[in-house]
C-alpha cells in the first residue's frame, strides 16, 4: 500500500496538530472526527424540525382559539336564553302598565333589543361569571343563525311597536284585546325563534368544537409522528456516525493504543490486525514492551517512563514492533500522557507504520554509504601516494605543494567519512589497536581548513580505543572547524584536555564573537538529539555529525559561552574509551602497532591511582603559557603521562 506524498504530509501534519494540542490528544481527536457527521445530520433533520415547530404552534394556537370559542359560545347560549326571559318581562311590564300598575316597559324594551343586537352585530356583554367584566362577542357569521336572529329582531321590533300601541291606547282602546293577544302571540313566537336561534348557535358551536377536537387530535398525531421521525433519524445518524468512526479507526493504518502507566495495553484499535497481524483483543492486557524489538526496548522504556512522570506531555518515539509472522515493522509513535483525563486514564500512543520509509531511508543510506566508501578508497590511495611523494621530497617548494594537496585530500577524507556517518550504515573501519589521544587530536587538527591557527595544549598521555579513534577525530575536527570559522583569522583556537571523574574532557575554545543564547541552545539540542534529522541538517550539518558520532560512543558534547566572549566546546570522552599510555616516554618515536595496545580499557580508577583527582567539572583553563605555571592537579598526572604542548 503506497501512500501519496501529499497524503503523507497531511497525515503527518494532522498528527502534529494533535500532538501540538498536547493536553488532550485523543480527547481532541475523537470529537473532531464526527463533525462531518453532525453537519450531515443537521441537513437531514432540516425539514423535520420546522414541521415540528409549525405543528406545535398550530396546536397551541388552536387550543387558544378553542378556549376562546368555548367561552364565547357559552355566552351566546346564555345571551339567547336571557332574551326569552327579557321578552317575557317586557310583555308583563306592558300589561302591568296598561293595567295601571307601576313598571318600566321602556327599559325592558331596550333590554330586549340588546342581546339580539350584540349577537348580530357583535359587541360586549357582561361576563356570565358575574365579576363585572365584559366579554366581547363577535358578530354571528353563520347565515342560518343570522336569519333566525334577524327574524328575532323583526319580531322584537313588532313586539315593541305592539307594546307601544297598547301603552298609548290603554285598556280603553278598542283594539285592546287584539293588542294583548298580539303581544302574547309575538312573545310566544319570539320565545320559539329565540329557542331556535339558541339551538342553532349551540349546534354551530358544538360542530366547531368537535372540528377543533378533531384537528387537535390530528395535529397531536402528526406531532407524535414527527417526533418519532426525529428520534429515528437521530438514532440512525448516531449509529452511522459511530460506524463511520469505527471504520475510520479500524481501517486507518494508524494504531491507537492506550497504555496503563505500568506499560500494559488497556485499549488497542483493531487496525493492529493489519499492521501487526494480531487481534486487538489478544493484545489488551499484555505489555507493549513484549512487542518491541529488544534493541529498542531500552529507549522505549526510557521515553515512556519519562512520559509517565509528566501528565499532559507528548513525546515522539520510533521503534520496531514484531509482526505475528516474526518480521519487524518500523513504527513512529506520538505518545501523550492523558493519565489525568478520567476518560482515558493512561498513555495514548498514535502509532504509524513507517516501514516503507525506513526501507527507503535505508536504501538511500546504503547508496550514500557505497558512494562514500568508494570515494574513501580513492582518497586513501591518493593519500598513500602523497605520503610516498612527501617522503622523498627534499625541495621545500615542492613539499609545500604536496602539503597543500595532502591537506585537501585529508579534508576530503573527513567529508567522505562524515558522509558514511550520515548514511546511518553502521559499518566503520575497525582499528584494533589503541591510539594515543594526542594523535587523535592532531589528526583532527589536520582535517581542519585553517589548521595553522589551532594550538593543541596539554592533552594527557592517554590512549583512545581504536574503534572510536576516527570518529573522535572527525568529531573534534567538526568542532575545531566550527571554532575557526566563527572567529577572526587572527585569533587562535585552543584545544586542551583534562581528566574528570568519569572520563576525560577535551575543550575547544575560540576567541570569536560567540553565539547568541538561542543559537547555543539550538546547537546543544542538535548535539543531544542527533536522530531528529530535518531540513536544517544541511545548515548545521557539522553539529548533526558531531551528535551522531558522539551518540555512537557515548560521548557527550556541549557548547557554552566563554567568559571572554568566544564559545567553548566540551567533549567528554567516557572512561570506557580510554586507556593509559603506561610508561611510554613522551619522546619515544611512534612505535609499531601492538606495542601500545591496552588489552582492555583502563578505567578512571587506574588514572586516579596514578594521581589524578577526579573533578566534578573541568574549569576553563588557559594554556597560553606553557607548563611551569600549571596547577598541582596536572603535575600529579605525570605518572600517567604528562601534558605535552
Amino acid at each position: 500500500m503506497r501512500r501519496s506524498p501529499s497524503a503523507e504530509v497531511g497525515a503527518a501534519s494532522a498528527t502534529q496538530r494533535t500532538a501540538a494540542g498536547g493536553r488532550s490528544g485523543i480527547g481532541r481527536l475523537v470529537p473532531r472526527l464526527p463533525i462531518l457527521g453532525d453537519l450531515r445530520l443537521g441537513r437531514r433533520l432540516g425539514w423535520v424540525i420546522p414541521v415540528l415547530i409549525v405543528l406545535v404552534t398550530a396546536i397551541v394556537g388552536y387550543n387558544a382559539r378553542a378556549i376562546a370559542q368555548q367561552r364565547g359560545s357559552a355566552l351566546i347560549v346564555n345571551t339567547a336564553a336571557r332574551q326569552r326571559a327579557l321578552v317575557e318581562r317586557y310583555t308583563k311590564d306592558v300589561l302591568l302598565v296598561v293595567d295601571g300598575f307601576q313598571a318600566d316597559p321602556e327599559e325592558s324594551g331596550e333590554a330586549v333589543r340588546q342581546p339580539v343586537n350584540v349577537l348580530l352585530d357583535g359587541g360586549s356583554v357582561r361576563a356570565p361569571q358575574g365579576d363585572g367584566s365584559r366579554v366581547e362577542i363577535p358578530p354571528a357569521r353563520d347565515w342560518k343563525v343570522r336569519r333566525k336572529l334577524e327574524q328575532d329582531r323583526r319580531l322584537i321590533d313588532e313586539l315593541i311597536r305592539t307594546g307601544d300601541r297598547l301603552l298609548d291606547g290603554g285598556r280603553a282602546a278598542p283594539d285592546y284585546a287584539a293588542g294583548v293577544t298580539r303581544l302574547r302571540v309575538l312573545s310566544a313566537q319570539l320565545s320559539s325563534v329565540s329557542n331556535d336561534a339558541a339551538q342553532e348557535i349551540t349546534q354551530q358551536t358544538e360542530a366547531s368544537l368537535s372540528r377543533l377536537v378533531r384537528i387537535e387530535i390530528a395535529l397531536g398525531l402528526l406531532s407524535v409522528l414527527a417526533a418519532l421521525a426525529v428520534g429515528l433519524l437521530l438514532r440512525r445518524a448516531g449509529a452511522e456516525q459511530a460506524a463511520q468512526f469505527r471504520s475510520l479507526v479500524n481501517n486507518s493504518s494508524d494504531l491507537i493504543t492506550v497504555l496503563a502507566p505500568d506499560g500494559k495495553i488497556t485499549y488497542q484499535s483493531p487496525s493492529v490486525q493489519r499492521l501487526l497481524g494480531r487481534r486487538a483483543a489478544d493484545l489488551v492486557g499484555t505489555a507493549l514492551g513484549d512487542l518491541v524489538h529488544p534493541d529498542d526496548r531500552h529507549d522505549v522504556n526510557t521515553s515512556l517512563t519519562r512520559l509517565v512522570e509528566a501528565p499532559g506531555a507528548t513525546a515522539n518515539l520510533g521503534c520496531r514492533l514484531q509482526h505475528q509472522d516474526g518480521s519487524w515493522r518500523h513504527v513512529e509513535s506520538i505518545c501523550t500522557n492523558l493519565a489525568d483525563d478520567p476518560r482515558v486514564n493512561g498513555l495514548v500512543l498514535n502509532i504509524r507504520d513507517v516501514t516503507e520509509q525506513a526501507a527507503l531511508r535505508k536504501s538511500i543510506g546504503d547508496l550514500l554509504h557505497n558512494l562514500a566508501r568508494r570515494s574513501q578508497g580513492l582518497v586513501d590511495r591518493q593519500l598513500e601516494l602523497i605520503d610516498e611523494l612527501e617522503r622523498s621530497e627534499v625541495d621545500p617548494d615542492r613539499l609545500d605543494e604536496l602539503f597543500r594537496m595532502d591537506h585537501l585530500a585529508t579534508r576530503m577524507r573527513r567529508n567522505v567519512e562524515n558522509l558514511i556517518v550520515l548514511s546511518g550504515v553502521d559499518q566503520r573501519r575497525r582499528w584494533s589497536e589503541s591510539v594515543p589521544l594526542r594523535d587523535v587530536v592532531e589528526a583532527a587538527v589536520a582535517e581542519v581548513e585553517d589548521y595553522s591557527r589551532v594550538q593543541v595544549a596539554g592533552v594527557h598521555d592517554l590512549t583512545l580505543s581504536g574503534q572510536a579513534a576516527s570518529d573522535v577525530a572527525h568529531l573534534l575536527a567538526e568542532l575545531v572547524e566550527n571554532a575557526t570559522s566563527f572567529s577572526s583569522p587572527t585569533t587562535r583556537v585552543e584545544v586542551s584536555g583534562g581528566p574528570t571523574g568519569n572520563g576525560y574532557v577535551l575543550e575547544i575554545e575560540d576567541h570569536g564573537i560567540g553565539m547568541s543564547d538561542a543559537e547555543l541552545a539550538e546547537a546543544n539540542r542538535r548535539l543531544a538529539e542527533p536522530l531528529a534529522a530535518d531540513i536544517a541538517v544541511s545548515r548545521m550539518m557539522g553539529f548533526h555529525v558531531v551528535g551522531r558520532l558522539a551518540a555512537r560512543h557515548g560521548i557527550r558534547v556541549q557548547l557554552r559561552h566563554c567568559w571572554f566572549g568566544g564559545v567553548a566546546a566540551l567533549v567528554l570522552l567516557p572512561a570506557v574509551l580510554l586507556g593509559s599510555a603506561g610508561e611510554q616516554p613522551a619522546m619515544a618515536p611512534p612505535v609499531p602497532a601492538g606495542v601500545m595496545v591496552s588489552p582492555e580499557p583502563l578505567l578512571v580508577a587506574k588514572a586516579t591511582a596514578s594521581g589524578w583527582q577526579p573533578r566534578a567539572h573541568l574549569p576553563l583553563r588557559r594554556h597560553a603559557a606553557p607548563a611551569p605555571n600549571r596547577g598541582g592537579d596536572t603535575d600529579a598526572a605525570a605518572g600517567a603521562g604528562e601534558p605535552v604542548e
Partner: protein
Amino acid sequence: MSGGGADEEGRTWSRHYRRPYTVTGGRTRPAHDALELETLVQTVTGIDERLAGLGREQRSIAALCREVVSVAEISARLDLLLGVTRVIVGDMALQGVVVLYRPQATVADADNQPVELLERVLHGLKNIS
C-alpha cells in the same frame, strides 16, 4: 580499501590519520639555511628543563640527539619527513636547544676525501637499519 586490509599492511591509525604538515604548521622552508642531510645535530647539554616547553617531535629529537646524529638519521629514526625534520631542527638550532656541526667533508669537496664520506654514509646507513 577496507580497514582490515589497511591493518594487514601494518599501517597504524596514527600513520594513517596524522598528517606531516601539522607538525610544522605547514612550513617547509627551514629557518636555518645551513641544514643539509648530513649536517650533524647535538642537543645542548643541561637543556632538559627547557624541554617541557617544546613540542613532542622537538623533545624526541632532543632525546635522540644527546649523541651526535645527522639530519638524515633523525628523519629515518623518528619516521619524520626529511623536509619536516629540517624545519624542526632549524627552529631548535635558532632556539639554542641544539647545535649544528657541518661535517668536515661536504659534497662540494668530496673529490678530496671520497673514502671518508662514503664511510660516513655507510655508518649512517648502518645506524638507520
